[in-house]
């Protein structure tokens, strides 16, 4: 079944259909970027892992958003540096993003404001774990090696620091800001203080 069938409840409507691959040029950066991923294997790995860890209790309910769309959105988010909301909005309007998400056709006069809600993307992210991420990375590396583009013969290892949770105020950051503030205020007070005459 094609991906369009899964998304029918969003893409329903009348009027002409737009073939996404015809609109996005082959030289478009997002198209070139998206064409490097082994999507089928990656989606299969995610679906197997999720089915094992979160078994479905009831067959009822609406069809889920396809894993292909959610994975592509999550990856694109890091590629273009967008927030969840921004990338979900771009999926509605940007044909290159639709191509990256694997959508083949869209209805032009669609009344829906969103195809995927940002909350859905956050839920998808919460189901990813370290084992699965390693598997996805291994699939990508294996595909690149299979194509003869990269070789693991000679490797480099290194580490780098990464800040986490800076949006929340922690004790350490409060203290650091207090230090900075006190040092800057002491500097300014020195500047503003009247100069003593030399005797």
């Amino acid at each position: 079944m094609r991906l369009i069938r899964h998304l029918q409840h969003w893409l329903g409507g009348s009027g002409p259909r737009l073939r996404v691959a015809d609109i996005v040029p082959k030289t478009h950066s997002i198209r070139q970027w998206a064409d490097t991923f082994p999507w089928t294997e990656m989606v299969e790995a995610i679906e197997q892992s999720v089915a094992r860890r979160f078994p479905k209790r009831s067959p009822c309910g609406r069809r889920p958003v396809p894993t292909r769309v959610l994975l592509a959105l999550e990856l694109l988010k890091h590629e273009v540096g967008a927030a969840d909301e921004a990338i979900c909005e771009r999926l509605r309007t940007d044909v290159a993003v639709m191509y990256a998400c694997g959508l083949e056709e869209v209805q032009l006069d669609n009344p829906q404001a969103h195809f995927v809600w940002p909350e859905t993307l956050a839920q998808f992210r919460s189901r990813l774990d370290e084992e699965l991420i390693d598997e996805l990375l291994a699939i990508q590396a294996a595909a690149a090696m299979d194509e003869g583009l990269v070789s693991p013969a000679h490797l480099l290892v290194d580490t780098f620091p990464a800040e986490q949770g800076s949006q929340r105020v922690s004790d350490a950051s409060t203290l650091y800001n207090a230090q900075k503030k006190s040092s800057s205020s002491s500097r300014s007070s020195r500047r503003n203080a009247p100069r003593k005459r030399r005797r």
Partner: protein
Amino acid sequence: MRRFGRQCRGQGKVFVKLVRQTETQLLEVGSTIAHLAHAAQQSLHQATALSDHKRQRLANDLLVATQAHQQISKQSRRLTQGQRLSHCKIVNAYDPTIAPIIKGKSNCPTQFGRKPGILSEPTAGFIFAARSPLGNPSDASYVLPLLDKVEQAIQRLSGPKRPSIQSLAGDLGVNDPGLRQALHERGILSVGIPKTSEPINPQPSPEEILAVLNAAGLNRMRTPYQVQLACACGYSRPVVESHIACLLCRGAGQIRYKGPQGAVVQLGMTVMTHNAAALVRIRHKRLSKRAQKLRRFLGLRHRNVNQINDPKN
């Protein structure tokens, strides 16, 4: 290099009085937590409307929250002027797995956060494996788990001739005799890891090559040509910095997702997008002269995408 957190080394001072005042207020607020948690636990047992699964999950969450508070309150009474931060000390109340990165410059603020490790190839910067461990382990402890991940990727290849890891390069932080021994047992040359601050000779003489092979005990496994390539691909700070810079510009320097799992997800996604961009560069021959030369030496074929997409015949 990015740095953040409070100044606790060098010329910086820690305002112990300020911390003490804040600490007293916070401890007073948190003193009732134990009673409230106990009461919550009792009422959770009495709640028959909840399913067993949900009750167990809530009880676990409650236990984790109570333990975190105990750990924070115990640590907050230990801060003393002039003392170094101990290993795996809590620096973020929301995430106890964040640790100070102890190794670093002696005259700059201590870095707090995570220390992801990457294993990349030196030509186009394709990252084969990444790891975001809990706390702040030594750099040498990253190497073998990362190599295991690369081995898993190699195992996925279906062809008769599978590639092998021939050499590994790293900075002085991974210069560990035990690690070198483990690498040699796996048939991996460790000539790219420097033993001193002197740079590695990129063009070793035949005698030096023989000495390297003898020292590693890999005379029959590795050829002199592979040693030459390993020396040429030895640790290079600008090359590694370029790979890290690519990750940082994709937001890997600031992890926005919550907790250790969030760090793993964000790092993994960033690495995969970086890899895709590296593959696009390789396909379109957008590589440096050095990278092109190394790829030629490694025998990596170069496809002409235009010819494949639009065949003339």
